[in-house]
């Protein structure tokens, strides 16, 4: 087996040094009958070529977004990833390193984490960010738990504009910690999220969670909501699913948000059928010690040179055990590197321009679809994703477009399977990867299917 270097002679001489008769002898503590004598019922080992062939066969059964015009969003976005990103993250010193527990030989990881934290804090306009979470949905759940710790309250109010997966994960995380989750159901044609939540905020409310842009693609100014929260001693959590947006829209920090968290996949990370992704998490200096996850900080070494270490670990599970701020341990190190490399390539100008192109592509797509009979764009405002109402059930329309070689949007019935009132709505996202031909093909196919 190509990964296993020991020869039979090695094994024999090592057993002799140990003083054991066989490898089975080393398993002497396994209870009688539980030690298998033969391999389990699975195929035996295969060469690289055979494995690659098997995996390629599975891949070939799928229709990838790179091979079709694709307008899928709803929390995961197809963007162009510069070749440099994948080259850097495949360097063995990054790929095959562990969590930087020995900082003297992990300055590479630590320095990029410090840069990552700075980039995340900069685009959200917050004081500090952590070294990543698992994904946007778990970041949201952890933000709610953090708000409960910080305020010593047990009620969270979730906006109807929050991504349903984020809501479900938050409810799952809260269900066994006596945290009450309140909120309203969302609808793409009802009032946007800014004002509808005021009357749900009371003296027991730990936080209000809004998504910006919201799950239907709408943009709202949350400044007043922040004021309403703060007036009652609650925190405002602003969640996002599209990290490119902050190159074009006002930052959540400028609204007065206390915690900003969301999904960083859009920058540097492949769609990859939903994971691994990278949760971004930022907050104010005041709340930093309530933060979950790892933090990298600056310090000096014995010779007085600047260096970086993991810090404030007294919040974490390996020190605090059952009193930790979270059980998170492994996070999304390599995905945060991909984010950092891509963001470094973009820089101030590139990031803004990428966002401007995304908005332009979405406006162009919306204009094209608005001209199709049976399609109505329902958003007043959006960044690179918006909701359309179709004359037929959206899931059927999406299937009909697959037959025409197009991956149209995400039917809201996929996100809200129990909501009969949303069956005719579809989310449409457009990014820099969508060409004029893609947009024309989508419009033409919709015209055909909806005729």
């Amino acid at each position, binding site marked *: *087996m190509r*990964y296993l270097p*020991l020869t039979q002679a090695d094994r024999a*001489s*090592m057993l002799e*040094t*140990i003083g054991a008769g066989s490898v089975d002898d080393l398993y002497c503590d396994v209870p009688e009958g539980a030690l*298998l004598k033969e391999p*389990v019922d*699975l*195929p035996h080992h295969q060469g690289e070529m055979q*494995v690659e062939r098997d*995996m390629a066969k*599975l891949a070939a059964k799928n229709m990838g*977004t790179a091979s079709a015009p694709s307008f899928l969003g709803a929390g995961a976005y*197809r963007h162009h990833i510069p070749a440099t990103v994948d080259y*850097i993250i495949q*360097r*063995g*010193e990054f790929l*095959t*390193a562990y*969590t930087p527990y020995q900082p*003297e*030989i992990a*300055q*590479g*990881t630590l320095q990029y984490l*410090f840069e990552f934290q700075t*980039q995340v804090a900069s685009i959200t306009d917050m004081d500090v960010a952590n070294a990543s979470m698992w*994904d946007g*949905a778990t970041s949201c759940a952890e933000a709610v738990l953090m708000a409960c710790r910080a305020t010593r309250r047990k009620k969270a109010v979730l906006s109807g504009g929050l991504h349903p997966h984020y809501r479900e994960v938050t409810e799952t995380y809260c269900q066994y910690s006596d945290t009450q989750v309140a909120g309203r159901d969302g609808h793409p044609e009802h009032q946007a999220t800014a004002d509808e939540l005021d009357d749900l905020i009371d003296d027991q409310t730990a936080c209000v969670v809004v998504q910006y842009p919201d799950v239907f693609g709408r943009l709202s100014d949350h400044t007043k909501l922040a004021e309403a929260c703060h007036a009652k001693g609650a925190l405002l959590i602003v969640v996002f699913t599209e990290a490119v947006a*902050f190159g*074009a829209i*006002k930052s959540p920090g400028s609204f007065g948000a206390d915690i900003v968290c969301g*999904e960083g996949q859009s920058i540097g990370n492949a769609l990859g059928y939903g*994971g691994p992704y990278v949760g971004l998490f930022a907050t104010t200096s005041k709340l930093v010690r309530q933060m979950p996850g790892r933090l990298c900080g600056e*310090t000096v*070494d*014995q010779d007085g040179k600047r260096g*970086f*270490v993991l*810090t404030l670990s007294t919040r974490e599970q390996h020190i605090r055990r*059952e009193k930790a701020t979270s*059980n998170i341990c492994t996070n999304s*190190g*390599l995905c945060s590197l991909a984010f950092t*490399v891509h963001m*470094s*390539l973009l*820089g*101030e100008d590139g990031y*803004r*321009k990428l966002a401007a192109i995304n*908005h332009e592509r979405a406006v*162009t797509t919306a204009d094209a679809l608005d001209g199709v009979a049976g399609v109505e764009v329902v958003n007043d*405002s959006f960044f690179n994703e918006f909701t359309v109402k179709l004359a037929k059930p959206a899931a059927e329309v999406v299937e009909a477009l*697959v037959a025409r070689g197009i*991956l149209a949007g995400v039917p809201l019935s996929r996100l809200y*399977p129990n909501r009969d009132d949303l069956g005719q709505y579809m989310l449409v996202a457009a990014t820099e990867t969508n060409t004029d031909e893609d947009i024309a093909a989508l419009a033409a196919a919709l015209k055909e299917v909806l005729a």
Partner: protein
Amino acid sequence: MTFQTHTGNRGLVLEEKLIFEQGEPGRTGVDLPDPAPVKSRLGGLARAEDSAIGLPGLSEPQVVRHFTRLSQKNFGIDSGFFPLGSCTMKHNPRLNEKVARLPGIADLHPMQPESTVQGALELIDQCAHWLMVLTGMPAVAMSPASGAQGELCGMMAIRAALDARGENRRRVLVPESAHGTNPATAAACGFTVDSIPATEDGRVDLAAFEAKLGDDVAGIMLTNPNTCGLFERDVRKIADLVHAAGGYFYCDGANFNAIVGRVRPADLGIDAMHINLHKTFSTPHGGGGPGSGPVVFSEALAPFAPIPYVVKTEDGFHMVETADEKDGNKPFGRLKGFHGQMGMFVRALSYMKSHGADGLRQASGDAVLNANYLLARLKTKLSVAFPGYCMHEALFDDDFLKGTGVSTLDLAKAIIDEGFHPMTMYFPLVVHGALLIEPTETETKESIDQFCDAVLSLVAKAEAGDSEFFKNAPYLTPRRRLDETAAARKPILRWSPSNA
């Protein structure tokens, strides 16, 4: 010879500024077309043109050089021997990276219609099948993002099962040698943690465990092989006792790599166990993730597994995404956006197919053999924490350093200068000054010998009374010992023009 260079660089050891201290406004590493002029539909929330975000501008070659230089300050498994106990730093095959990037995998959107992702669903189903056969368990939840989330998944299923029984059991028994994630996880599920002491031979104290059982006990969280690198030889008795008391058995599967293909957790009586794909099945650790922590379940807990999950029907594969879709199942909820760490499933399946049933069995055997060989060689000088054979990792305490003035930390730092990544230090907590060493199966006898020779020579040096040498190690790294106290006292967590 030591002398100061003008640049601060020292040959191949290159100083590298933060990305924020480089670059020029107007410079960029991407060429993007100018967007066509359109009427903004940002609802009056456009970011002001003149408000800087604060990102530096660098060209592509600058960015490549920056991150290449940073990479050279890192130690990975590709660099050398990395015996970090409990973390399982084994070779990461590049085939797995290659297949994870195949078109039709890397470019799949999680919300595509099922008809367009049948291969992806089949791949998840295959990965699940391998995990179920290797553990002997009837069900698996694939979505947990890491080992810690796997624990959360298992403990939430236990909580849901207890709730379904209408029982208010809230006490969870956790051995004191457990990973810190175990008590943190139990607390997150609303349980209280009751610690079980260890025996003198590093296992659960069966009598103490039995005495703690009662009708308020939800279950036990037991790592097996445990964090001392030992197989819990009373594991079946523990399972029987906890079941008889009405509780469940959660097994932390972080050390499954020691027994894969040789012992099936189902045969030990467990109800739930997470599997760290990034440990046992070699998906790369990536400097701290991403991981993946699927959880296998017994019949008793399977109905409570979280959404989503894949089922095979006559019409092909189907992703169940809502709680009430299938009769009889009562999912406790959703743990993660979308469907889990697909990229890790691809890598793990590629790894499992490459090894096969025969190779996986050989891998666990070689891991245990390597650890016992290292134990046999080092115990000539180092103090073994517990008697007998170990599993995949060898545990020592710091008794052998007594009187030398050298601590476990000092020794670890001196090991760095010898060109190895140190072992895990000060964990598990049940051993004073612990050194936990896990060589893994992908190391040669030669590399283990070299490491043992180096450690033994350092121990001889410590015994000779050269403690000052150790106190100041490492000497040859890009940075020497870092002031962690200062970092925590006045945290600087980001770059800003004012702290530059």
